[in-house]
């Protein structure tokens, strides 16, 4: 498509405005516990999120090219995730992954350049989802309140991710360590989701930050 504005010199790019801007009241809320808040809720923003997908023989090519450009191979096993976060690659469907990292480069363009020649589809979803990080001793209780998967420490371990419904809306849930989870929801649901999470967390006490 013709882009007549590649020379947009002189205009400073605007900062991204999170779907939750103004909604996070930093501090401790809910029940007070001598051990401190049961869960800490932080927004992860701004993130780059790019979906990559291939079909048939394109898949092997894409996995190689991803490895070359990201230094990380998308995980083969369904519902698993890899990477330290720079980037993190999550399986989201057959031959489909989400590449996530804190925004620092034009990840969409990086991946388009690297993967499109091999036939992969590359789609920027960085603005389409909001992400919360939940961590602390009560984090699995909150997952149990919102979603029906097995959140037992023995069952849902670091490096596993899953898409399900949480508090009645679609969510992608990534286990980072035993008591830390990154949750992705559609941007439009972010406020509703945050409200549900904080309601659920009130009995354990929660820290917003």
């Amino acid at each position, binding site marked *: *498509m*013709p*882009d*007549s*504005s590649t*020379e*947009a010199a002189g*205009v*400073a*790019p*605007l900062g*991204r*405005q*999170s*779907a939750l801007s103004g909604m996070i009241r930093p501090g401790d809320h*809910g*029940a007070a516990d001598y051990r401190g808040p049961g869960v800490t809720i932080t927004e992860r923003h*701004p993130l780059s999120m790019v*979906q990559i*997908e*291939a*079909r*048939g023989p394109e898949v092997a090519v894409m996995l190689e090219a991803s490895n070359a450009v990201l230094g990380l191979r998308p995980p083969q096993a369904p519902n698993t995730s890899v990477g330290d976060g720079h980037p993190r690659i999550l399986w989201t469907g057959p031959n489909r992954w989400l590449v996530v990292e804190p925004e620092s480069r034009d990840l969409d363009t990086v991946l388009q350049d690297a993967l499109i020649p091999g*036939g992969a*589809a*590359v*789609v*920027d*979803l*960085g*603005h*389409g*989802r909001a992400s919360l990080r939940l961590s602390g001793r009560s984090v699995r*209780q909150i997952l*149990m*309140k919102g*979603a*029906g*998967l*097995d*959140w*037992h420490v*023995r*069952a849902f371990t670091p490096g596993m991710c899953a898409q399900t419904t949480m*508090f*009645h*809306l679609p969510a992608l849930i990534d286990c980072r360590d035993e008591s830390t989870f990154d949750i992705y929801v*559609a*941007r*439009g*649901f*972010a*406020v*509703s989701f945050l*409200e*549900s999470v904080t309601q*659920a967390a*009130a*009995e354990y*006490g929660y820290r917003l930050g």
Partner: protein
Amino acid sequence: MIFNRRFDQPFRLAEGGEIDRLAPVSFRFDGKTYQGYLGDTLASALLANGVRLVGRSFKYHRPRGIYSAGPEEPNALVELRTGGRHEPNTRATMIELFAGLDARSQNRWPNLLLDVMQLNALLSPVFVAGFYYKTFMGMPGWRFYEHFIRKAAGMGSGTTLSDPDSYDKMHTHCDVLVIGGGPAGIAAALAAGRSGARVMLLEESDALGGRLRSERRNLNGEPAMRWVRGAAAALEALDTVTVMTRTTGFGYYDGNVIAAVERISDHLATPPEHAVRQRLWHIRAGRVVIAAGATERPLVFTGNDRPGVMLASAARTYVNRFAVQPGKAAVVFANNDDCYQTALDLHRAGIEVQAVVDSRPDGHGAAKQQAETAGIECVTGAAVIASHGYLGLNSVDIAPISADGLTVTGPVWQLSCDLLAISGGWSPNVHLHSHAGGRPVYDPGIAAFIPGPSRQAERSAGAGAGTLGLADCLRQGAEVGAEAATLLGFTPPAIEIPTSDEPATGPLKALWRVPGPGKKYVDLQDDVTSSDVELAHREGYISVEHLKRYTTLGMGTDQGKTSNMNGHAIMAEERGDSIEDVGTTMFRPPYNPISLGAIAGRDIGMHFSPTRRSAMHDWHAENGAVFVEAGQWMRPQIYRRDGESDVKADMDRAISREVTETRGGVGMVDVSTLGKIDIQGPDSAEFLNRLYINGWKTLPVGRARYGLMLREDGIVFDDGTTSRVGENRYFMTTTTANAGPVMSHMEEYLQVHWPELNVKVVSVTEQWAAMALAGPKSRDVLAAAVEGLDVSNEALPFMGVRETRIAGVKARVFRISFSGELAYEINVPADHGRAVWERVMAVGAEHGIIPYGTEAMAIMRIEKGHVAGGELDGRTTADDLGLGRMSSSKKEYIGRRMADREGFLDPARPKFVGLVPVDGKSRARVGSVLVADNTMQPPVPMLGHISSSAYLSPTLGHPISLGLVEGGMSRVGETVWAMFPLRDEAIEVRIVDPVFYDKDGERLHA
């Protein structure tokens, strides 16, 4: 604290029980203050205070007392708490006493002692089963009587205040779920838990133990509760075992999913701050051990409902667990060995046991000998045939009966007593087994139904499986628990089974009806007597399901826990069939009453369903938007200005203003909710060609096209524009309502029907904030907003698509129009949505730009004659909507082969038209039926209907509508009538061209 004062609890024993005598608790019942102890239930505390009359019965307003000590309680239902926490029909036997508890009796007026409705009891011969149906149905004035009838027969009343507490839901998984924390359940949990399996043990009461809490039994030579506490500690020590008390597993569903309710704060006056009152659990279990125990049955004799008559097991519970005397002088009446143990326990508690009446010709076993040794008079081959007393029991009539139990064979004698403990045997709680699809089978050995073959991964153990002896319960619990773990691949070690001192018991002899005249209650809660069952039989309601519905046997809050077995056995006797053949009614969840709060959880108010907001939501809110729900989205309906309220006149003014100022200048609407789908891959054009009725192979990069999709049956599915944004990349938009269905539709064809196509699709609805800039001045505003893009008509023609930057942000501009004006849609990554929106509003200020809402948007599209939701109603074809010419005959597309069916080609099909009121002002409602004239008598041939209406078109100055009418455009100029019979509306309307505004599209292409 004062604990050396002697509280006035005249029926409290000096020692014993599980109560905490250092923690006296004061509470109120019917306005009077009493004291009990922590560890009491409301029922035990009332009995300790000598309160025996606690309610009036449902239909006859008979005085009723506490009948049981558990969840089966049919009588002692009270209203608990006040204000928003008020809760009717709460079982006094299940309420843990807390300080400040306030309960009231129900179904009495003006008070419990003097209830005027007890006159109903005098009329009881007429209030037989089916009385109301027979008397009032079909009679004039039912609506008048109904109010009084419902008031007279009833339960507690609810509250209209909202509940201040919060309720919650949780999901969990386990390998082995054990339901019931009695001896069998504890043994099962220990056996399964020691294998390493994840085990959950649910116990309805506040502590483990089950019947062991209520019986004087030894295990391994020590009081049984010592073993229970040891087992509880052992379970606690296993980190794979979770024990939940105050938790009832109440429903067993498909897929081995069990629902349970945890009463977290019910035993407190109010929940602590931030705490939850009750929590509903959804438990997905590998295997389930149902150790739900058994329920003791009453005996059916005349006057068996009088306060003072009580289940024998309950009498033992009150003396042993609560250290309460449920009376001072007792008679025990049973058809099994329970009577002797009961007599011994009562005797030991200082209650004068007048006699044990055993209906069996011979007494059995060691228990009888013990009772006789204790000096208790034991009568066999006899029955209590009647009870006496006004508000409570004061004597019983006893007589010898025949061996078959059908006749009185000798003289009647009377004994004074204020307590009659009765036992008709035990019925296993087969409810959960039955929920899980199992069919209980009759076991004549215990005269009760026991679980049949399992349909899901469950097995019952203990009394719930019909295993009534303590030693057998423990052994079977361990065996079933170990089996569950083994079936899931674990290796359970053997566990030690404690030895019991329970004496051997003899068999019971079923006695379903005691002979004698008078009212014998089968179902105490619903006031169903044995004669009601007999009447049902005479009138042909011989199936147990009909019996239930005709007599209400087994309905109500207790769902027949104490009555079903007796009622069904009496029906079997009447029919002359075996109990096996008569069967039992189907049990359905919930096992016990569950509060609506627990079922609703947090899905109330604004969280009834999640809401979805666009990136510009806050700007809209700050600028006067009134929001409307569109699916889950919150969309601005209109923008109010200072001084405007939500009265209709102000709303109308705002709508008109938004239309007029947009058509006269420029306006902007948030269209972020439209579905957006990114399509990539070499076969994308082919895929679009198959999805849409029109052709896509010639669309150049940088252009958009309007497309129409059909379903396979040839009916219109959705419409929208799709743009080619790259060689093999397209950007589709769908209607807001169909964003999800269209996405799923495309995935279905790619995965199921056409896996050979190399196309990847993903929803990008949320990635892009979208705004439509419309009006003759929109180009000027756009030109000022974009950076380095020529937006002239030549450079960016109608249906052109360009990438540009606005406020430094990458943006896509589409020259498309829904309003019929010169218009552009601007898409930017959502995190920049608000900033770009504000930039456009700022540069548009000098052109008088306004924001407009969904009302103005809808009116402008109706004026322009565009089809939308009202027309895409799942019944219309492309031809019906005047869009048939779009379809390509050169290709195959979804729906093509069904679209040209004969019925769809019928010229009489209603077709898309515009409609205006002949009087220039009447507003024809959406859904109005179009008919030839307003004087016709039914049946009136229907010519069509109105699909969309603008109650006022500000542009035209009168109401306009869109609709479908037989003959369509060939009838332009004719008038028909729009009828809306529900509102008695009849409006004459003229058929016109559906494009009311700018028919030649000059504004669009300007």
